[in-house]
């Protein structure tokens, strides 16, 4: 990807405004489906509503880390700055969504297990993923070389299969994290529809955030270039 191609996508303000309004409508509709339309779960009650944002954010995190992986690999091969900007933006938004997953998971855990945190495979592996993304951001704050960020980006992506398959590490009876979708626990059609709708809305929202973050990165790199030339 060339930097001009990236700029063409990022600087189109009309397209961005339309996308922002579309995201606003999608998120409003998601909240409507979650809190008004979908029936309340019998055992968990209102707290179960957090599940739609928790699972949706987890899927968004995986998508963003996949983008981080692809952008990091392509940066190492081509050394084009546009890939580095894309990786930087995806790790930044990825960290945000990983944090949402952890926080919503804790809220659910407090209600279901009567504790904020349990040391079981899915939770620990996701916390490790969050920590690796944090160290990726740390490298960026340190203004480290883009090569280093790309290398760490690849290692961050290697953690995703560990998180996904961590529930297979122990018997279902020995772990607490529920496998709702895998065990077909979504009995009402509304549960499935709302989960899909929320996930798609959050993916588009993450896409908008990535565009905005990439614009900030592009502008700040241009500012640095100008300061070097005329400062």
């Amino acid at each position: 990807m060339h930097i001009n191609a990236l700029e063409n996508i990022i600087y189109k303000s009309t397209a961005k405004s339309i996308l922002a309004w579309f995201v606003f409508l999608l998120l409003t509709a998601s909240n409507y489906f979650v809190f008004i339309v979908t029936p309340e779960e019998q055992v968990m009650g209102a707290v179960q509503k957090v599940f739609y944002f928790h699972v949706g954010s987890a899927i968004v995190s995986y998508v963003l880390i996949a983008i981080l992986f692809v952008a990091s690999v392509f940066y190492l091969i081509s050394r084009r700055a546009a890939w580095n900007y894309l990786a930087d933006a995806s790790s930044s938004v990825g960290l945000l969504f990983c944090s949402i997953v952890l926080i919503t998971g804790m809220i659910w855990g407090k209600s279901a297990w009567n504790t904020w945190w349990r040391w079981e495979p899915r939770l620990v592996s996701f916390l490790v993923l969050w920590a690796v993304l944090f160290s990726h951001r740390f490298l960026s704050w340190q203004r480290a070389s883009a090569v280093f960020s790309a290398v760490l980006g690849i290692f961050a992506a290697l953690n995703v299969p560990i998180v996904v398959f961590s529930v297979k590490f122990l018997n279902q009876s020995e772990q607490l994290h529920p496998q709702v979708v895998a065990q077909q626990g979504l009995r009402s059609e509304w549960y499935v529809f709302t989960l899909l709708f929320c996930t798609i809305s959050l993916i588009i929202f993450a896409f908008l955030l990535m565009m905005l973050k990439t614009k900030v990165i592009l502008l700040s790199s241009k500012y640095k270039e100008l300061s070097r030339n005329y400062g």
Partner: protein
Amino acid sequence: MASLHQTNKFYLLFRKDLALFFDTFVSLSSAFGFAFLSVLVATFTLGAVILPEHDRVILAHAANWLCFVFSVVYIFTKTIEAERLHEALDMILLSRISPATFYFAKWLSTTLVVWLMQILICLLFEIFFAANFLKNIFPLALVFLLSSSAITSTGILFSAMSSYLRNKEISLPIIIFPLSIPVLFSGVELSMSLSIYQNLDVFWLSVLLAINAISLSVSWLLFERVVRG
């Protein structure tokens, strides 16, 4: 150097790295001193609690791995520093030594040092904590070797990376700790299964072997990119 075979170059680099660790003895003694202090702190804080034998052994294993990871990070901060300080790394790369040869020599020598450090920490726990580690010392040494190798394979890569950063003392732990958790997890599970069931848990052993294979191959592939910048 150019006329030497890669195996000879590997052997020379391996000897050079071991000499850097053992001849000056500064980094090794500092790492050991740091490990000793962390064992003492663990003994003072955890040893004061009166626990049944079974619980004390489990606690000793957890504390042993904790002390290990702290001392290992100290070793990693020193492992590429000598080459970077005297610009020897550039000279080595200019003298037709492939980065892969340099990486594997560094990995092997550092793994041996890290392994030695872990055995020393284990002995300290045996003395101060009555942890009963010596009963299974040989299988435990194998677990230590595998975990040392896994943690060193990424440690070398990130040590090289952090040596270029401004705040390298804090950068390396921030990068290394999250990536070392899967190694620690399987290491703790294996050493505890040895203490409790007297055998190695095959599942966690295969996890540790898989981590070794993945981290060594990915780090080897990426090392050249890091040192050439």
